[in-house]
């Protein structure tokens, strides 16, 4: 599901959607009141559909930008390593981004009390960074699928490798149109 207030750009897009919806309702209501009601129902249904259909990162956006100084065409691997991961096997010759999601409980995620979880994730990221000097290591969102989504916006990966459990693997597979495998 799309969170329309997740970023400034998403919120700005929401404003555009709301303006278009309001304009349609006003135009229809000026023609006929009941037509306005019908259009309002359609607009609300469309808005619900828009909220439910999150864009799938990796489905359409090819990686046209070379993020690092490495030559284009190099195989890029996004590794998802939960906090506490001690080692990650990096494929030879690949450009690797390791994302450590700041996994939080439902209560912590809803109340935004994720500082402690971010500390755990940062400690894991620091430890992995010391062992993998050639890989980029980042801390991600509390939801692993969201962390992958965020990482894919700036790192055009060819595949995603998950070190977490089945639930994490399935959640990421649902959101990402890229090959997702378990390490």
């Amino acid at each position, binding site marked *: 599901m799309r*969170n329309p*207030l*997740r*970023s*400034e*750009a998403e*919120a*700005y897009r*929401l*404003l555009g959607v*709301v*303006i278009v919806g*309001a304009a349609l*309702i*006003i135009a229809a*209501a000026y023609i006929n009141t009941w037509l*306005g009601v019908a259009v309002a129902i359609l607009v609300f249904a469309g808005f619900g559909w828009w909220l439910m259909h999150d864009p799938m990162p990796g489905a359409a956006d090819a990686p046209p930008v070379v993020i690092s100084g490495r030559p284009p065409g190099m195989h890029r691997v996004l590794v998802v390593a939960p906090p506490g991961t001690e080692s990650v096997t990096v494929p030879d010759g690949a450009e690797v981004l390791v994302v450590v999601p700041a996994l939080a409980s439902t209560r912590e995620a*809803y*109340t*935004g009390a994720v500082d402690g979880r971010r500390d755990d994730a940062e400690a894991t990221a620091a430890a992995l960074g010391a062992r993998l000097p050639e890989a980029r290591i980042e801390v991600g969102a509390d939801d692993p699928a969201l962390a992958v989504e965020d990482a894919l916006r700036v790192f055009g990966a060819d595949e995603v490798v998950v070190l977490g459990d089945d639930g994490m693997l399935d959640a990421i597979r649902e959101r990402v149109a890229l090959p997702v495998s378990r390490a």
Partner: protein
Amino acid sequence: MYLFIASEIMLFGSFFTAYFFIRIVNGVPWPTPPYHLPVFVATINTFILMTSSATMHWATTSIKRGNVWGMRAGLLLTFLMGLAFLIAQLFEYMRAGFNTSDGAFPTIFFCLTGLHSCHVFIGLAILAFMTIRAWRGHFTAEHHHGVEIGGIYWHFVDVMWIVVFTTVYIL
């Protein structure tokens, strides 16, 4: 963030419930004669607020690209337009020709638009701090979370205005 959205939906939802109850269930004419709503002024105000969202987006996009002066200009313009909206809203209240004691229509009109104005006021306070911080060089292309969060709030306030403007002034 989800708790914030939920609380805002409940807050505005309660006022909109009162609005729909008064207008549709009770069948109170909107606006109740002999009063008139200043639709023209509100439309101008709407354009001002929507333009302020565009400048807010410009500010955020600028700092993401490392353009500090673009961000500063965007934030300052957003603040000024937000302030213009609020001042115009105050003049609209003073010249409305009705007060909360004049019946259900004026009461819910002032409640809905007043609630939104409170949000604009809070947004202006946030924008003021953001602008000061921007001039002090607190934001960079890598670290601009403060601009991002303020931008989200400002767009949310504008989204709510579209809903209020459409239901209260136009329909």
